[in-house]
């Protein structure tokens, strides 16, 4: 019997034939006897927002960390633009992460003794921006994310949603070409999650920054352009919806 194909669940249509900004092929990674990734292929184009979803323990966070060059796969390749990320040593990967990538984590992970604006200033200083200019840019990002009144507050004085938006500002301040977000709304209630996702996606689109985020929340995933579902270390769904 012929199967009836109604929606493609396999490879996405390429974006106007352009080369992907990030290209992963055949990723495999095991922790002891546990195979976290079992042959993953993924493309991410410039400015695209991708949600990686799946059950707990499915491998989605591991995948994010491999794509971002934090973890090194046992097999397979990750290419960022013209650079083979998986061939770089730790120093090379650190440099690439600092120059090109931004990160947002579930609990924000702001430095607790620094104000919001100082937290956003730090990556700019590390990238070599002069202090005065770094401060100006940090203020501008906080303003853009609706946090102007919070800029002098310490992380402990911020709500969960505000802290997470500061983390978004910190991640985008260096205008990375790729933003990796691991469960960015995982610790937030529905309303705060919505505020963070609106801020994150609009700011990323304005900056033409590609985003790969992991989430177990379908409402968070719905802010992305498309979704890939990871089950047992493999991508089972990934379609073109735009």
């Amino acid at each position, binding site marked *: *019997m*012929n*199967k*009836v*194909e*109604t*929606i493609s*669940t396999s490879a996405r249509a390429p974006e106007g034939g352009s080369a992907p900004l990030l290209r992963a092929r055949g990723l495999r990674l095991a922790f002891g006897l546990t195979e976290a990734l079992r042959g993953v292929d993924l493309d991410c184009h410039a400015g695209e927002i991708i949600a990686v979803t799946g*059950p707990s323990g499915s491998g989605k966070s591991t995948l994010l960390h491999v794509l971002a060059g934090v973890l090194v796969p046992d097999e397979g390749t990750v290419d960022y633009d013209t650079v083979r990320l998986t061939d770089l040593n730790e120093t090379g990967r650190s440099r690439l992460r600092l120059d090109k990538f931004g990160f947002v984590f579930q609990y924000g992970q702001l430095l607790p003794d620094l104000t919001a604006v100082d937290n956003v200033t730090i990556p700019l200083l590390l990238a070599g921006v002069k202090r005065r200019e770094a401060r100006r840019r940090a203020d501008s990002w906080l303003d853009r994310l609706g946090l102007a009144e919070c800029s002098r507050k310490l992380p402990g004085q911020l709500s969960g949603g505000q802290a997470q938006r500061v983390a978004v500002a910190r991640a985008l301040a260096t205008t990375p070409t790729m933003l990796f977000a691991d469960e960015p709304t995982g610790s937030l209630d529905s309303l705060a999650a919505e505020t963070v996702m*609106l801020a994150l996606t609009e700011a990323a689109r304005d900056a033409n920054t590609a985003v790969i985020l992991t989430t177990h929340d*379908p*409402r968070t*995933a*719905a*802010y*992305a*352009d498309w*979704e890939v*579902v990871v*089950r047992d270390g493999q991508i*089972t*769904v990934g*379609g073109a*919806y735009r």
Partner: protein
Amino acid sequence: MDNTTTLLGLLGTGASYGYDLKGRYDRWFGLKKPLAFGQVYTTLTRLMRNGWIVAIGAEAGAGPERKRYGITPAGRARVLEWIFTPEVPSETLQSDLFAKTIIALLLGDDAGRLLDLQRSRHMARMRELTNEKRGAGLAVVLACDHALFHIEADLRWIDLTAARLSQLQAEVKK
């Protein structure tokens, strides 16, 4: 729930008398309301008219003549089309999706794939609703939220069923 195609799907697992077919239907789908005999035979007549099943021999006896019914290739194609066409999200979705899952498992087809297809359809609708919320007034935002939470409930069922698929498969084979 689409009783007609569900019955057709059950016939896809093997030829059956109307009486036996009703028993199999009731086992899976008739917990709250068993199928009436009259409805079984009306449906079988309609399925024959559409060329999706044929009568394959009759058994004469003291009572009324008993016919066995078997699915045709066109009937099998119809069942596959039904299984792999995602439903528009609605409050009646769950029973249809449940029926499709059971029939796919009974036929030894890929129930995981149909759940993935439906998940994709749901996520596409969630993206549309999320985009509608951007810059909209509060009334529209709340209406979209209402729809989003309902679709999310379906998605949770889909994910849980996907996680329990091998268990369900073993049960269906009993």
